[in-house]
């Protein structure tokens, strides 16, 4: 039976036993995710707590062609969880239980609304941890981590979310329950488990996640190296790897980011440095001792003016705190900031940094740079004031310049934050019409009606034709088969 919109609303609210939000004022909380520049009120917010409730919601929404946008903690930075004005915003916040820890197979079965950090906190007494640790780990949820294939400061050694998740329980847009992956190391058929990672809520609703746990390393050492030249710091990264070292974490911050972090959390960073590298080693005691000596030698050889090793757990915590709090710290320097997420081959780091400094001059906006240096993943934070006419537009133009530069240098527009609504135009630059058509094909294979998170992650060819006239992709005119606007 087809219901009117009002009848449908009543029915959907009943499914969630009243755990829903429908009035405009209270729905404001859900109007954006971490990308606050993009706002939209949904038609209805639903907060189910059981898999059966999610199935019922999906069945009804599918039958009535109501869009559904899934949301975890809303910490995403690309607008992936921005609501649809005619759709349901499906909050998975009440799916917040750790269901099972399997100490034999080293797995944790959790609900998608469990925070990233809660998993490691829960299993630490058992001598175990969950490796991916995005900077927002205190708040971001594991379901969101799957949707964005989140990394973090330790993924150089331990991999991304896709490398650390064994199994997902999914609900299809039609409300069917199915499983991808298993407690074994692999599964029969196509690797749909991998495909689901980074799919930004476009292919299905994650209702349960089984993650891999690792034994906590015996010893950890954290080193800080200060450089008077950003280029030298960038070169040092390549040299560390050239010496066969794969640190557990390898992060870089530039002067503005250092100063902001220092003012915010007093991490004892050298304020006169042009750049710092924070480098973590883990392993057995003897191993750490040897690697630390080699690492210090490499860093000094690369021109570090200071190399300091944290003496104890407290000092290690402080060194990491400055890095993990870099975003909010930079946020204190200006009313607004715009965080980019391009990834480049590591060898391009120094020259891309110089170009970003040039762009900063051209657009007249300061930029603080924080990088996952080991992975070549850049997070330039562009400072602006949305209340000043034209500044948001300038910040966006600056960001678009950085993304195009990343593509030119053989990289990608997003390493871990996702495309969402934010980088949808740049997708037209990175991919050809044929490639985008394959993405639409993948979407159609999972969600034929297109009800899941519509308008995100993959641009329509029409949109690219409008936007893409400005760009030349791999020396060819874009979308010659489409009419020009």
């Amino acid at each position, binding site marked *: 039976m087809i219901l009117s919109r009002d009848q449908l609303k009543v029915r959907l609210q009943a499914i969630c036993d009243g755990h829903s939000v429908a009035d405009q004022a209270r729905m404001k909380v859900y109007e954006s995710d971490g990308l606050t520049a993009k706002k939209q009120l949904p038609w209805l917010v639903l907060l189910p707590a059981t898999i059966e409730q999610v199935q019922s919601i999906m069945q009804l929404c599918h039958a009535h062609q109501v869009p559904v946008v899934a949301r975890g903690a809303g910490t995403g930075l690309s607008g992936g969880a921005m609501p649809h004005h005619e759709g349901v915003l499906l909050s998975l916040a009440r799916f917040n239980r750790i269901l099972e820890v399997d100490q*034999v*197979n*080293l797995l944790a079965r959790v609900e998608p609304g469990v925070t990233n950090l809660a998993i490691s906190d829960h299993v630490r007494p058992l*001598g175990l941890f969950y490796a991916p640790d995005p900077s927002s780990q205190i708040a971001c949820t594991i379901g969101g981590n799957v949707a964005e294939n989140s*990394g973090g400061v330790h993924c*150089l050694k331990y991999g*991304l979310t*896709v*490398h650390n998740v064994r199994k997902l329980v999914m609900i*299809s847009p039609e409300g069917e329950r*199915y*499983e*991808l992956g*298993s407690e*074994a*190391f*692999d*599964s*029969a*058929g*196509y*690797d*749909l488990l*991998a*495909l689901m*990672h*980074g799919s930004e809520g476009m292919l299905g609703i994650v209702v349960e996640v089984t993650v891999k746990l690792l034994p*906590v*390393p*015996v010893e950890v050492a954290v080193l800080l190296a200060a450089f008077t030249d950003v280029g030298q710091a960038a070169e040092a990264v390549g*040299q560390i*790897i*050239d010496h*066969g070292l794969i640190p557990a974490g390898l992060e870089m911050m530039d002067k503005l980011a250092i100063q902001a972090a220092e003012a915010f959390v007093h991490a004892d960073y050298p304020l006169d440095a042009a750049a710092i590298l924070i480098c973590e080693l883990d*392993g057995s005691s*003897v*191993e750490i*001792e040897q690697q630390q000596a080699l690492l210090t030698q490499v860093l000094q050889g690369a021109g570090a003016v200071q190399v300091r090793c944290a003496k104890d757990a407290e000092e290690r915590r402080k060194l990491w705190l400055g890095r993990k709090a870099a975003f909010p710290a930079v946020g204190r320097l200006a009313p607004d900031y715009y965080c980019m997420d391009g*990834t480049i*081959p*590591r*060898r391009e780091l120094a020259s891309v940094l110089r170009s970003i400094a040039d762009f900063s001059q051209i657009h007249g906006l300061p930029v603080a740079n924080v990088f*996952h240096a080991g*992975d070549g*993943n850049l997070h330039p934070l562009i400072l602006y004031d949305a209340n000043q006419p034209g500044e948001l537009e300038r910040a966006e133009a600056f960001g678009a310049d950085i993304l195009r530069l990343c593509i030119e240098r053989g990289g*990608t*527009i*997003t390493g*871990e934050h996702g*495309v969402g609504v934010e*980088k949808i135009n740049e997708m037209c630059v990175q*991919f050809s019409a*044929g*490639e*985008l058509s*394959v*993405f639409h094909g*993948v*979407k159609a*294979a999972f969600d034929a009606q297109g009800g899941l998170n519509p308008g995100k992650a993959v641009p329509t060819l029409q949109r690219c034709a409008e936007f893409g006239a400005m760009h030349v992709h791999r020396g060819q005119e874009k979308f010659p088969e489409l009419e020009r606007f």
Partner: protein
Amino acid sequence: MTVDSAIQHWQEQIKGALAEGKRLRIRGAGSKDFLGEVGAFDEDINTQSHQGIIEYAPTELVMTVRAGTPLATVKAVLAEQRQYWPCDPPTFGGAGTVGGAIAAGVSGPGRVAHGAVRDLVLGVGMINGAGQALKFGGQVMKNVAGYDVSRLMSGSFGTLGLITDVSFKVLPLPEAEVTVVRSETLEQAHERFLQISRLPLPCSASAWFEGASYLRFSGSNAGVEDARQTIGGDVVIADIWSQIRDHQLDAFAAAKTVWRISVPPGSQAMLSQCSLLEWSGAQRWLLDPDIDPRSTLSEGHATLFRAPVTDQTQRFQPLSAVVGGIHKRLKHQFDPQGIFNPGRLYQEI
């Protein structure tokens, strides 16, 4: 043939096949012809002449190669720079190409420490069933622009398209490596493997067969020495791991049917029947079992890895209805006319 002309040549062949309704078998060195269903095909697309390393900068930890490049070449070039591809795919009969390794998605003993083939794939160039040359992923470690089509290609047995080139992550060769052996029963070895996986030791491979367990530790000199002392056992000099990886153990040579059982490491399933236990217990090999292992398997999945062509048993574990449906729709999107390796993975795709 230049690179572009090779791709153009294949595009022509694919367009011809589309026009004439022909089905194509994608084939590299043919080292895994035995793996999977026979499928149905009218002619071959051969990738073996499409060889060569396109890009390799050791400090980037990334290598990009043409699909027909032999695994042996990749290994040798990486070794010159003291690096390796840790998923260590098998080279049955000494052969095998990178494209084939990706398409089959079969990993070697090192999978436990640094991941499977799919974990290390960063990007692919491919030709889809409409004959379009496309690129997905890239040469960087982190990339979430668009769906992860490159990882999807891993283990797809050529049913979604022709892989033309691949970028994958590599790692520095460990400073030290040691293998220790101990005589013990399968049950003892299984229990010990599970215990060791709970310890922060640099264990990079584990195996039990013919009454002895083997453990490999890889890493820094100090870390490996620590582990050797902690775990004990006699040091093995011979390269036991490539024999295990390539199924060169005597028992495999004599076997008619080889089953691969993939289960959670701690599972008791098929434990007592297995001839080779690997991956801390997660990979089990059964030789000539009396009954179809799937009839009693309640977790994981079973692959009939090698069998006489006359054996009609389905090679791969059947899929659930919902997941099977997704497979069919994905196949249709990538290869609408079903020209690539039809039936090689499952009848319906």
